[in-house]
């Protein structure tokens, strides 16, 4: 990929770096690219600058050190999963996509945390745009349309009062850096600066005057902007804000107790097995509407009535063999006609938001003098127990629906919580709320108390659902671009 004139190498041509612009977007991952391009297209009268810390290739070893930090909670590879280059983490994502469910916007039904201050329907338009950005041909998540074309691929749960089928869809996956490079190059009012690491915010009262940047070699420049949007990912964005908060607490968002708190990641759980008809495909396969992966999900009424957190389950076929019980599947006398198979159940759990699960700043500093990250990841045992309870309900429901049986295997919630699996979805540490006491950004993604500082990242999620966050992040970017370009604000 050859950089064209619209791209500026911060360390080689610092003279070409503009002093100021109308909109400065920091971070050229999926969120930053979508935001910068949407805003630049909507406001041709603006100068938009997109600043990226990396270059055009996956980062070399020396840049990897910048991602390291200390870890005092559950094990979490801080250096893994993040990509500091043009296109960001879309350079290695697997393309799993699904919007948050409507219930994910509501306060947690078990009373453990708040919901989003906006409703799911307020994201509809932006989600349509996000599907286009992620090159997903359809935005319907109705599993039964797919089941009609692939009989036997899923359990028919239409008669269930507790569970239903739904889908993941898949981006090709879109590598935002290569896919939208030409779009950036063609956008005359958009300038992209690469190898420019944000090292601080230029705060004055309630305004963010601009952002201080440095090259790896030490060249420094401040870019001033009318509007500033931070889209550096769920860890780096919060790290920069935490660093800014050590220098200025003039705005409420930087004083918020929520800043850095509520760090969460999706986690997996294998709570047991099911005996169900052979040939189920709760795995990725090609449909005429694009690649899909069916999942079993709790119905909204069940989530509400049983005070569950959200989650999904996939059934993974087990090798032949095992104990005796499944061998009577297929026997009509036990109400199980037909050919049966054993499946291991893989769940993706929505984590509980926990204030004490947090990122902070370490005493050690990186190459640029910024304090390194300090992560204290906590997973609630309640999250795991909740997953087991939902699976037990699924086991019973399979019997009631005459489609199978479930086996609940012993689960050591404390051991799993102490060493959980990671999905590398960094959520929650600048969460969205109408109150600066409860969150860092408002419903328009503006940092509370600021006039012009925005955050576009999965760090703004106050509730997390079970879906991979990229589609929702891009939707937030599209929504933010609309607000920034028009100057309108959403109604509280």
């Amino acid at each position, binding site marked *: 990929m050859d950089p064209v004139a619209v791209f500026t190498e911060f360390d080689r041509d610092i003279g070409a770096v503009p002093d100021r612009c109308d909109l400065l977007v920091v971070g050229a991952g999926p969120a930053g690219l979508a935001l910068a391009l949407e805003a630049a297209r909507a406001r041709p009268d603006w100068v938009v600058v997109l600043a990226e810390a990396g270059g055009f*290739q*996956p*980062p*070399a*070893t020396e*840049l*990897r050190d910048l991602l390291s930090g200390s870890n005092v909670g559950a*094990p979490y*590879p801080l*250096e*893994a*999963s*993040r*990509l500091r280059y043009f296109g960001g*983490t879309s*350079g*290695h994502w*697997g393309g799993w996509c699904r919007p948050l469910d409507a219930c994910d916007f509501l306060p947690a039904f078990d009373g453990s945390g708040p919901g989003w201050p906006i409703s799911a329907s307020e994201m509809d338009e932006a989600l349509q745009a996000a599907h286009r950005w992620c090159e997903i041909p359809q935005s319907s998540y109705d599993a039964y349309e797919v089941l009609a074309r692939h009989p036997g691929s899923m359990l028919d749960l239409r008669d269930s009062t507790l569970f239903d089928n739904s889908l993941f869809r898949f981006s090709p996956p879109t590598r935002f850096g290569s896919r939208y490079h030409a779009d950036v190059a063609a956008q005359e009012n958009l300038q992209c600066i690469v190898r420019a690491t944000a090292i601080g915010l230029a705060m004055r009262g309630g305004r963010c005057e601009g952002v201080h940047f440095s090259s790896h070699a030490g060249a420094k420049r401040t870019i001033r902007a009318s509007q500033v949007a931070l889209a550096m990912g769920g860890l780096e964005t919060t790290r920069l804000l935490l660093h800014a908060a050590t220098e200025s607490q003039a705005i409420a968002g930087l004083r918020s107790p929520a800043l850095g708190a509520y760090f969460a990641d999706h986690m997996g759980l294998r709570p*047991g*097995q099911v*005996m169900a008809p052979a040939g189920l495909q709760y*795995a*990725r396969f090609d449909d005429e509407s694009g690649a899909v992966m069916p999942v079993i999900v709790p119905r909204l009424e069940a989530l509400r009535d049983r005070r569950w957190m959200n989650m999904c389950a996939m059934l993974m076929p087990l*090798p*032949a*063999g*095992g*104990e*005796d*019980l*499944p*061998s*009577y*599947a*297929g*026997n*009509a*006398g*036990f*109400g199980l006609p037909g*050919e*049966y198979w054993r499946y291991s159940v893989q769940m993706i759990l929505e984590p509980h938001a926990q204030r004490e699960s947090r990122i902070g700043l370490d005493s050690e500093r990186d190459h640029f003098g910024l304090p390194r990250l300090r992560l204290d990841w906590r997973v609630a045992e309640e999250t795991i127990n909740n997953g087991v309870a939902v699976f*037990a309900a699924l*086991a*019973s*429901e399979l*019997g*009631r*629906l*005459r489609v199978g*049986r*479930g*086996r*609940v*295997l*012993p689960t050591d919630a404390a051991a799993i919580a102490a*060493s959980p699996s990671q999905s*590398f979805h960094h959520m929650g540490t600048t969460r969205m709320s109408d109150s600066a006491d409860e969150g860092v950004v408002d419903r328009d993604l503006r940092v509370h108390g600021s006039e012009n500082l925005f955050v576009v990242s999965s760090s703004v999620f106050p509730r997390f659902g079970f879906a991979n966050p990229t589609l929702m992040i891009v939707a937030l970017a599209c929504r933010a671009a609309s607000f920034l370009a028009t100057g309108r604000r959403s109604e509280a």
Partner: protein
Amino acid sequence: VKRRQLLVAGVSVAASAAALTVAARMGMLQGWSSGFRRSDLGPDIDVLLAAAVGAGGSGEQLAARGRDAEVLAARLRSRLSLSPERVPSLAEATRMLGSAIVEDFADARVLEHAGWLLSETEADLARLRWLVAGKRVIEAPAGPVEESIAEVKDWGPRRTIEGVPFLVQPDGHYGLWFSVEAVPLWIEVRVAGAAMPTFVNSGSVTSGIHGSLRSIIDKPGTYPIEFFDPPTGRVQHVGDLEVVAKPAAYVHADGSTSAIFCELEAWGPDETRAGMVVNPQPDGSMGVWVRTSCVPPDSTMMFGDVRLATSIQTDAVTARVPLALLEVAGEFPIEILHFGSGERLPVGTLRVLAGE
């Protein structure tokens, strides 16, 4: 009705119980009469019980919780609203039991057996099956006859390393599986001549090595695996389980000898490029394989400090490295960690080269 025809009819019960003729059903019960007690629920339910071979082990364990056959029969008679005047056909019995089981689940009349959530009715059915039929319902004629019983398409495991358990099941037995065509429901799997609990599904048979026989894995050698057909006395030699001598122990860099791990034979892939996957897996991760024996089941492959999703076979270990861990260039140690002892088997270094 010839005996052979009865056996074939018996096979079909599990898949389509209602398809049996009356003559076949009655003939089958007569053929089993030496070991089969009538349930007093009618001949069709007796046939249904007799065909529920897979419930034998569960029924035995459930029966241990109490209740004799008469009590269970009375409970089922009440549950299904049966009377001496109302003896259901096999099809009716099947339908009635299915409905009763569904109602059990709806009304939370369930119990747990080895983690499985079962309806009370089906648990009673499994118990009753055990009490009236047990596992020795058909007596073998004198003298075995070497003859093919079923077409075995595949089976396993066929090999293990000395002292290394395989397919360990929750009750501690080592699993054996067979992919078969048209196998009688009542066959037994014999390991080194000893009959093992056997469960017959449509298209598959599962069994295992139970009890003291498990010690055969500590003695290198070959052990015959056979199908035995009690009614006819036929024996089919399926193959041999090979227990190979344990390879030399792994010697650590400090000269100490591992009490857990054996010599490392080979592994790979050992190199990839940032953001790229060699040996891609269906989920987009990179498959890494290590050829070595004697890795205990409670072990995992490690990528630096990250535990990988790991599968342990008799003489190999495989794991999936998520693409998310390969986004940056660097050198990452691959090890196998045994949780029980904390000992680590150093496998090598996976080199992730910078992107082109």
